[in-house]
């Protein structure tokens, strides 16, 4: 039995993300060969077949490839639960500012967020992360592993950076504007000539 086969078998039966340490403990192989086996398996599955290995919520999990999604959804008839804009705002504030209290979330949004927090707690995307040592000892909220899983992230450091996004978009927009200006200028020069 090779480490790749062992890891594959363990990942096949696991219904939650499994860490390399857990795979190592279950399979009896040391950590380095398990990690190498994960890389090999990932490359092998990416190459062909309907399954691929992804890193989610701090672990590894087998999942079907996106191109099979339509077919599978016709079989399983999943109920897609899209989050409303207000819930997304609350979730984003919790994700970026965690641990954060309800009043701090409301200070950012300017509206009552009690419902949003309750809805996110029910969906297990947000959890209570203790109490702040201030008067009233308000509850602090943080995101869960389910949040990472639902948003295809391995860890919180993969969250899109707030300050980098506009800068990342700016050069392409600037290029487009510059190209448009060049075209207009050339046309204007032709007309006046």
């Amino acid at each position, binding site marked *: 039995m090779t480490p790749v086969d062992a890891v594959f078998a363990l990942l*096949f*039966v*696991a*219904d*939650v993300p499994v860490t390399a340490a857990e795979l190592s403990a279950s399979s009896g192989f040391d950590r380095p060969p398990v990690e190498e086996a994960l890389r090999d398996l990932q490359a092998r599955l990416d190459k062909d077949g309907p399954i691929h290995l*992804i890193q989610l919520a701090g672990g590894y*999990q*087998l*999942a*079907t490839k*996106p191109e*099979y*999604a339509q077919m*599978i959804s016709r079989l*399983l008839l*999943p109920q*897609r639960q*899209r*989050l409303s*804009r207000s819930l*997304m*705002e609350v*979730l*984003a*504030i919790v*994700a*970026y500012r965690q641990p954060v209290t309800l009043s701090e979330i409301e*200070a*950012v*949004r*300017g509206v009552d967020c009690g419902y949003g927090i309750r809805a996110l707690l029910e969906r297990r995307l947000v959890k209570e992360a203790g109490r702040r040592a201030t008067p009233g000892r308000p509850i602090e909220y943080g995101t869960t592993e389910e949040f990472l*899983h*639902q*948003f*295809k*992230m391995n860890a919180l450091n993969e*969250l*899109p950076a*707030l300050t980098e*996004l*506009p800068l990342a*978009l700016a050069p392409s927009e600037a290029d487009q504007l510059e190209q448009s200006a060049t075209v207009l200028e050339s046309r204007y020069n032709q007309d006046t000539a």
Partner: protein
Amino acid sequence: MPPRAIQAPSRTDGAAIPALGVLPAAPIHVSSEAFEGSLASLFALVRDHRIDLMGVPLFPICEAYFEYLITATESDLDEAAVALSALSYLLERKAWLLLPAPEVDPEPFEEPAELPEPSVIEFRAAIDVLGQWHDERADLYFRSRDAGPNLFELPYELADVSGADLARALDRVLQRAKPTAMPVLARARRSLAEQMELVFGSLKTEFQSLTEIIQADLTRSECVYWFLAILELVRLGRSRMKSADGDVLFARSIHPQAKLWSEEAISA
């Protein structure tokens, strides 16, 4: 030509007041530089703000009309009242126009309130990206938590035991039971899971009949409860049974297929 008012002949001619009790405006002709027409027309135009009353000198008109009222020998009192009302209205309107208008202070220009800092706008781009990732994640499917084998669908071994054998075994243990009065609306003292734990503890690896397994004095309902628990254990593969000399014998399963509730709780 100075403005003047001329009283035309009365049109009511002393007739009775109309049913509505409203008299038409007196046919007084006004002639001035700004307006020429009847007093009724002037009244209507002023009321509808279609003429600038400042351009119509009212004093000569009123003076001429009062002179007419004093000198006229035959005047209709109602028509005169209507005409005086119209003139007083016009005078009031003009008086208001002549009053100095109070200076209206301009509305102070309010600077637009600054957005609170921090603002949700800061998160807008990130929310869009997260929404996109959420949609992409929805296209991935994972092994379900419920994908394992269902305990209640596992095959179980009946051996050579028939339903009738089971019924006779139950009947034998019921005959030994002491019927006691059950309290009304009594509840089961323990859940089926707890009962299965108890029954499982009483089973041995060697085959025993029900009467041997159930040593304690039980009521009929307790006997049924024991019997149902042992059937569930057989169904979950934790117990096996066989037929021997017209009785059914039960024993612990050597290779248990499923965990009991307590074992699941311990492993969790």
